[in-house]
C-alpha cells in the first residue's frame, strides 16, 4: 500500500468519515458539525491539490478492490479525473460554507450535512473511477445520496419532485446497467484507456455496439439532462439553494457530462465511434439540447427555473465539445467548459440563493432594483451572467472561443451557428435580468426581508459567490497562466490527441 493508494483512499475518506460522524451528531451540536464539515472539505482540497501536483509530474495513482471474479473496483487518478476531482472538492468547500450560512436555524441539519458529504464522496468516486463498473457503481450511488437532499424540505412539492427525480434517474440507471453488462459480456472487463474498444471487435459487432452506445448515452444522458430526458432538472429546483448549487454545478449534472466524456473518449474510443457513424447523432442531440434549453429558459419567470434550463443548455456544450473530440480544439473547449460551467453556474445559484434567503425573491419579475439592496451579490450575478453569455474577459468566452474554433476546424459550419444562436439566446434571457436588477426601480417592499447587520446579507452567504465570481474573471483573464484550468485541460488533452 504505497502512499499513492493511501492518498486516493484518504481523498475519498476525507468526506465520507465526517459524513458518517455527522449522521450520529445530535441536532444541537452545530459548532462541531460545521467544524467537521469544514475540516473535511479543507483536507480534501489540500489532498486533491497535492495529487494534482504529483500527477503533473507523472506519478500514477491507482487502487484496486476485487468485487467479483473478473470485476473489480478500480480507482485511477488520470489527469481528466484529477480535473473533475479538483473542481468538485473546491466547489464543495465553498458550498459547505454557503450551506452552513443558508441553513442556519432550519430543522434536521445533521441529516442534511451527512448526505451532503456522502454526495461529494460519491462524486469524487465518479471522478476517479478507473473502469466502467466502478463508474456505474458510483453513478447509481449518486442517486441514493442526492434523493434525500432533494426532498429535504419535506413539503408535498419536494416529494413530487423527488419522485420524479427517482423515476428519471433510476430509469436511466437501469438502462445504463443493462448496457454496461451487455458490453461486459462482449468486451470483457476493460479499464478506461484512450484506445477504447479493440478494433476487430468494432468491425465484428458493429450493430450491437451501436445499440449499446445509444443505451449508454441514454442512461448517462438522464443525469446530463440531454433533451428528452431533462424533465427532472427544473423540478428539482424545489431543493434548498446549496443543494441545487451543488447538484447543478458539481455533482449530478456534471457527473452525467463526465459520463458522456468517459464513454466517448475512454470506453469506445473516438475513432471507433466515428467508424460506427455515431458522432452525428451525438452532435445532433447536443445541439438540440443547447437550443431547446435556451429557448425554454426564455419562458421561465422563476429565477431558479431559468437557471436550471440554462444549465440544461450549457451542459450540452461539453457534450458538443466531446462529440467533436477528434479535433483537438473542440475537445479542449468541451473539457474546459466542464470547469468553467461549474464556476459560473455555482455563482449564479449562490446569488439566487441569497436573493431567496435575504429578500425572499424567487421570481425575476420581483427583482427590479435589487442591485441597490444587494450590490455585491448582484455584481457576482452579473459576472456569472456575463460568463454565461460569453463576454470576454470571463471564462465563458474562452470555452465558447475554443468550441467555435474546434467547430470550424471540424468543418461543419452549423456548429458555430448553434453556438452563436445560443449566445444570442443566453443574452436574451440573462441581460433583461441584469438590467431590471441594476437599473429597474424597486416596486414596494421586499417579500421577506431579513437584516444581517452591517453586510447586505450573512457573511457566509456573501463570501462564496464573490470568490467564485472572482475565479470566473481570474480564470478568464489569466487563462494562459501555469495552473489555470485551460493549461490543465491542454495537459489532459495531450494523451487523447493522436
Amino acid at each position: 500500500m504505497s502512499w499513492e493508494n493511501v492518498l486516493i483512499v484518504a481523498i475519498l475518506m476525507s468526506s465520507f468519515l465526517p459524513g458518517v460522524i455527522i449522521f450520529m451528531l445530535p441536532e444541537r451540536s452545530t459548532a462541531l458539525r460545521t467544524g467537521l464539515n469544514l475540516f473535511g472539505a479543507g483536507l480534501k482540497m489540500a489532498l486533491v491539490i497535492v495529487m494534482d501536483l504529483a500527477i503533473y509530474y507523472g506519478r500514477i495513482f491507482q487502487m484496486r478492490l476485487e468485487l467479483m471474479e473478473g470485476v473489480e473496483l478500480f480507482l485511477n487518478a488520470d489527469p481528466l479525473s484529477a480535473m473533475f476531482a479538483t473542481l468538485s472538492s473546491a466547489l464543495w468547500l465553498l458550498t459547505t460554507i454557503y450551506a452552513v450560512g443558508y441553513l442556519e436555524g432550519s430543522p434536521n441539519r445533521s441529516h442534511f450535512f451527512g448526505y451532503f458529504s456522502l454526495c461529494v464522496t460519491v462524486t469524487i468516486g465518479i471522478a476517479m473511477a478507473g473502469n466502467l463498473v466502478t463508474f456505474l457503481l458510483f453513478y447509481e450511488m449518486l442517486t441514493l445520496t442526492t434523493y434525500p437532499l432533494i426532498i429535504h424540505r419535506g413539503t408535498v412539492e419536494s416529494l413530487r419532485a423527488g419522485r420524479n427525480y427517482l423515476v428519471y434517474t433510476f430509469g436511466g440507471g437501469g438502462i445504463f446497467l443493462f448496457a454496461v453488462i451487455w458490453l461486459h459480456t462482449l468486451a470483457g472487463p476493460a479499464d478506461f484507456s484512450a484506445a477504447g474498444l479493440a478494433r476487430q471487435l468494432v468491425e465484428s459487432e458493429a450493430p450491437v455496439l451501436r445499440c449499446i452506445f445509444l443505451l449508454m448515452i441514454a442512461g448517462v444522458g438522464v443525469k446530463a439532462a440531454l433533451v428528452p430526458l431533462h424533465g427532472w432538472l427544473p423540478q428539482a429546483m424545489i431543493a434548498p439553494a446549496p443543494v441545487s448549487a451543488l447538484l447543478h454545478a458539481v455533482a449530478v449534472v456534471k457527473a452525467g457530462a463526465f459520463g458522456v466524456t468517459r464513454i466517448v473518449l475512454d470506453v469506445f474510443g473516438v475513432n471507433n465511434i466515428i467508424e460506427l457513424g455515431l458522432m452525428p447523432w451525438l452532435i445532433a442531440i447536443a445541439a438540440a439540447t443547447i437550443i431547446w434549453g435556451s429557448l425554454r429558459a426564455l419562458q421561465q419567470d422563476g429565477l431558479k427555473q431559468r437557471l436550471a434550463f440554462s444549465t440544461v443548455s450549457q451542459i450540452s456544450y461539453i457534450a458538443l465539445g466531446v462529440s467533436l473530440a477528434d479535433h483537438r480544439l473542440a475537445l479542449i473547449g468541451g473539457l474546459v467548459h466542464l470547469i468553467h460551467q461549474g464556476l459560473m453556474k455555482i455563482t449564479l445559484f449562490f446569488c439566487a440563493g441569497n436573493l431567496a434567503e435575504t429578500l425572499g425573491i424567487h421570481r425575476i419579475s420581483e427583482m427590479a432594483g435589487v442591485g441597490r439592496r444587494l450590490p455585491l451579490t448582484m455584481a457576482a450575478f452579473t459576472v456569472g451572467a456575463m460568463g454565461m453569455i460569453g463576454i470576454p474577459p470571463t471564462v465563458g468566452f474562452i470555452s465558447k472561443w475554443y468550441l467555435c474554433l474546434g467547430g470550424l476546424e471540424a468543418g461543419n459550419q452549423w456548429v458555430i451557428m448553434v453556438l452563436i444562436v445560443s449566445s444570442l439566446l443566453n443574452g436574451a434571457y440573462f441581460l433583461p435580468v441584469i438590467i431590471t436588477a441594476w437599473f429597474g426601480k424597486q416596486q414596494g417592499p421586499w417579500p421577506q426581508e431579513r437584516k444581517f447587520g452591517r453586510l447586505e446579507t450573512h457573511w457566509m452567504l456573501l463570501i462564496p459567490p464573490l470568490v467564485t465570481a472572482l475565479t470566473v474573471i481570474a480564470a478568464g483573464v489569466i487563462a494562459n497562466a501555469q495552473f489555470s484550468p485551460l493549461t490543465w485541460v491542454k495537459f489532459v488533452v495531450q494523451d487523447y490527441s493522436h
Partner: protein
Amino acid sequence: MAFADSWIVVPVFAPLTAALLAFLVRRASFFISLAAACLSLLAVAVLVNRFLVNGPAAYAVGGWDPPLGICLRTDGPALIMLVLTAVAGVGISLYAKGYFTLRIERPSRVGRPERQERFFWPLWMLQLTGLNGLYLSGDIFNLYVTLEVIGVSAAALAALSGKSASLIAALRYLLVSLLGSMSYLLGVVFVYKTYGVLDLGLLQAAAAPAPGVIAAMALMSVGLLLKTAIFPMHFWLPPAHANALAPVSAILSGLVVKGSFFLLFRLWFDIFSPVLPAAAFNLMGSLGAGAIIWGGVQVLRQQRLKLLIAYSTVSQLGYLVIAFPLAFAGGSSQAWSAVLFMASGHACAKIAMFMSAGTIMLHAGHDRIRDLAGIRAYLPVTAFAYAAAGVNLIGLPPSGGFIAKWMLLITALAGHQWLWAVVLLAGSFLATAYVFRVVAQLFVIPPDKPVITRRRAGLLEWPALIMALLSLLLGLMAPYPLRLLEAGQIVRTAMTMGGGP
C-alpha cells in the same frame, strides 16, 4: 474420529438443548437461547475455516456409515446458509429480547406478552435446530424430518400472536406445509423404492433418469415449491408473515423460506441434476418471472407496511427461482453462486426490514403507510435500516443485491436469454417503486413535526441496523462468500466418490 471433528454437530445440538432448557427454565430462557445462538455461530466459524483448509467434511452420526447410518455433510452452499442462519439467529434473538421487554412494559392485554415470550424462545430454538439440521443433513429422510420440524415450529411461531387473523394464517400455513411435506415424503419413498438408499452422496452417484426418480423429483419439487411459496402457490405467505409478531415475521421471511428453497436448490443442482431437462429449468424460470412481476404488482397495492414487506418476499423469491434456467444455460458457476449469494443478501435485508417495521409499529401503534410520515423524527436508526435494506432489495450498488443482480444479468446476457434479463430489470424497477414509496414517507419530515430523537429501546433499533449494514457489506466483501461457493464445486466431485470417511 477426533473430538475436534465433532464441531459439525454443534449447530444442531446447541439450539436443541437450548430449546429443552428454555422450555424448562422459563426465566433464563433468553440467556440460554442467546448462548446457543452464539455457540452455533462459533461452531459455524470453525466449520468454515476448516472447510477452507481441507475441503468438504462428512460426519457419520452414531458411527454408522452412510448406507445404514445418517451422515452430516458440510459443503460450500450449506456453509453459506449456515453462516447466514447463525448470524441472523444472534440478530433476531437480540431483537426479540428488546421487542418483548418493550411489549411487557406496555402490554395491550395483561399476560399476553409474557405468554408470547415464554413460548417464543423454545420454538425459536427448535426452528434453528431444524434449519441447521436441514443444511447439514446428508440423508433424504432426515431432510423430511427437519422439514417437519421447521414447518411445525414456523406455524407455532406464526400462531403466537393470538389474533384470529394470525390463527387463521397459522392453520393454513400448517396445512400447506403438511401437504408439502407429504408430497416430499412420497418423493422420498419413490427414491428409496428405486435405489434402496437414503444417503445423498450415494444417490448423487447413482442418479439417472429412471421413471421412479422422475416421479420422485416431480413430487419433491412441487412440494418444496409450495413450501417456498413460489408464485402460483404463495397465498399462505403474506397473511402468515404480516400478522405474526415482528421477530417471528423476520424469522419466517428471512430464514424459513430459505430452508425449503435450499433443499430445492440442492435437489435440482446437486443431486438429481442429470434427471432434469432444460424445459424443466425454463418452467421454473417462468414461475420465477411470474413471481417477480405478480409480487411486484401486489406489493404496490398494499396499504399496510408488513403486508407490503411480505408481498415483497414473494417477489424476491421469484429472483431466486429465475436464476435456475440461467444457471443451467449459463453453465458457469456464476449464476449458481449468484442464487445463494442473493438468498443470503435478501435474508439479511428482509430481516432488517421486518425488524424496523416491528419497531415502527410498536412506536406508531399502526402500520398504515400513508400515516407514517416523518418517522425519522423519532426513529432515525430504524428509518436508515429500512432504507439500507431497501437498497439491497432493489440491487443498488453498495449492496449484495447489486452483485447478485450483476451476476444474473451477466449470465442472462451471455446466454442471450433476453426474456430473463428484461424480467430482472422490470423486477428491480418495481422494487424501486415500492421501496421508495415507503422510504419517501419515512424520510420526509413534514415541516411542522419537530425532530426529537428519544432513545427507544436500543435492542430494537441496533440489530435492524446491523443486519441492514451486513446486507450492504455483502456487496463489498463479495469475493469471500463466493470463494466458499466456488469451493463448493469441488464438493460435487467429492460427493460422487461415495463420500464419508
